[in-house]
């Protein structure tokens, strides 16, 4: 990827962050912290790596995205809207009655959602099933799964991990959004994860440890995960900052599931817009 493409991708991530904060502010409800920490991975997937067709969301050969940490769906909704799966105005309906943009993703309501999630620990196993189906059918699509570090406290994550190893799912990439915080406090306080990278490696994954908010590193890791087809599933163990891009949200437990007020919204918008490298389109 050349510098120009990288810059464009970084600006896409900034746009995605802006849309995340905008929709959560309008809804006065949602999860900004984790949506911002996963934003660079989300952007890299939808705007560089994934083969999807917004006109044909259930295209059988598409790459799949599983947001196992379903509460950060504003990040995915923003990506889907920016990609053209549905009109941008739909983002204003987040969490509202009758909206396709449910508080947690619903595959039968929102085009582009490949599996309904929201109950933590469950999406990863679904991603494993999708990757398995791809292998069975001889298709070359990939499955990208985003899990939270707090979510890795769920036992089902590890059940799914051992299945990915057993069935040699090198078409599966799990992105561990290691932002160090969960609802009740830091992960170290609530339930220490020790080293999730080592854990996934021990479960038979090729593991790439990166700064998950550095687009260059995200792209490099996903590119490796894409080209290395050695029968081993891939884990991108990504150190991220919860609330990344908005100074007062960064590394703050309190911004897990709270919407900004008008003043906070204004400041967040100013800070995020300042992140654009090229001029705003």
């Amino acid at each position, binding site marked *: 990827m050349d510098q120009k493409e990288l810059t464009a991708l970084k600006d896409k991530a900034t746009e995605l962050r802006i849309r995340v904060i905008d929709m959560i502010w309008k809804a006065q409800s949602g999860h900004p912290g984790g949506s911002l920490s996963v934003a660079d991975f989300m952007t890299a997937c939808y705007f560089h790596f994934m083969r999807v067709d917004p006109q044909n969301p259930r295209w*059988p050969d598409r790459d*799949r995205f*599983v947001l196992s940490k379903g509460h950060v769906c504003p990040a995915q909704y923003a990506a889907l809207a920016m990609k053209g799966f549905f009109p941008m105005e739909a983002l204003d309906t987040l969490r509202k009655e009758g909206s396709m943009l449910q508080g947690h993703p*619903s*595959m*039968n309501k929102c085009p582009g959602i*490949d*599996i*309904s*999630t*929201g*109950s933590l*620990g*469950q*999406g*990863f*196993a*679904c*991603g*494993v*099933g*999708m*990757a*398995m*189906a*791809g292998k*069975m*059918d001889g298709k070359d699509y990939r499955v990208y799964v985003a899990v939270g570090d707090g979510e890795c406290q769920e*036992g*089902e994550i590890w*059940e*799914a991990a*051992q*299945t990915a190893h*057993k*069935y040699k799912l090198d078409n599966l990439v799990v992105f561990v959004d290691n932002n160090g915080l969960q609802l009740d406090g830091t992960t170290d306080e609530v339930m220490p994860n020790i080293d999730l990278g080592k854990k996934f490696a021990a479960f038979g994954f090729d593991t790439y440890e990166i700064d998950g908010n550095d687009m260059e590193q995200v792209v490099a890791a996903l590119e490796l995960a894409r080209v290395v087809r050695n029968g081993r599933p891939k884990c991108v163990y990504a150190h991220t900052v919860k609330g990344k891009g908005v100074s007062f949200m960064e590394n703050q437990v309190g911004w897990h599931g709270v919407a900004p007020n008008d003043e906070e919204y204004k400041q967040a918008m100013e800070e995020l817009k300042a992140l654009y490298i090229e001029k705003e389109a």
Partner: protein
Amino acid sequence: METKKIPTRNGFGEAIVELGKENKDILVVDIDIGKSCKTGEFRKQLPEQYINVGIAEQNGAGVAAGLATCGKIPVVVTYAAFGSMRICEMIRQEICYPKLNVKIACSHGGVTPANDGASHQAIEDMGILRTIPNMTVIMPADYASAKALVKKAAAYEGPVYLRFTRDAVPVIYGEDEDFEIGKAKRLRDGGDVAIIANGDTVCLALQAAEALAAQGLQARVLDMHTIKPLDNQAVAACIDEIGKIITVEDHNILNGLGSAVAEVIAEAGKGRLKRIGIQDQFGQSAPYQRLLEMNGITVENIVALAQSQW
């Protein structure tokens, strides 16, 4: 009368092989108890369609959901206690909410795990799963209906929970009998009392009806193999044409067949009901027949209830 006895899990095991041969998208997702649940032949004959996720039920449900989004028809196979309660929320969130085409096929329903004890006896499963939207809940009465209903479930697009017996139960139906999901089978007609049963208790209902006939009482016997969607019309007909109804089930009397029938009767504002089933108590290691007796699930009890005034 000498009747042939076969566990209904055998009917499942045979049907799933036939289905798998016809359609390569039919997959078995085993959870390390395939041998007990009769998937051995499928595993042997259709290894490409066979998955074993190890002792990890939650994962089995999730993997099945993912497979279903890709057009597969996964059949998750385990014991009823685990396939309903251990993975209840995975079934709700990842299978029923998105209405995915996943079948949960469970052996060891009711008290049929007998000497395994209370941990393995599933007395709450059908009731729990019938409260989840989009779920269909079925317990076939015998080997032949198990085979037939497994095929119907595979042809139906959406989540289905199927429950089979570990123990051998009498064969009631011929191999060519046709079944419809959600439509009760009237096995015998009579105007004095209606006995609505499902699963391994249908044979008890039939024996009771025979004993009653010998005493001049005519019983209608329904095999309510599907408790959700319930055949409301068949229940309504029992209310209107007979009035006196007894339900029999190898399941807790709370929330199972008896409760489902009670809901129809209560809303109709007429009809009388007595429920025979597990008396809201855990079982123990004991012979299957003894466990039924401990809960009053016997031919004698059905007959006595039918004869008494209430």
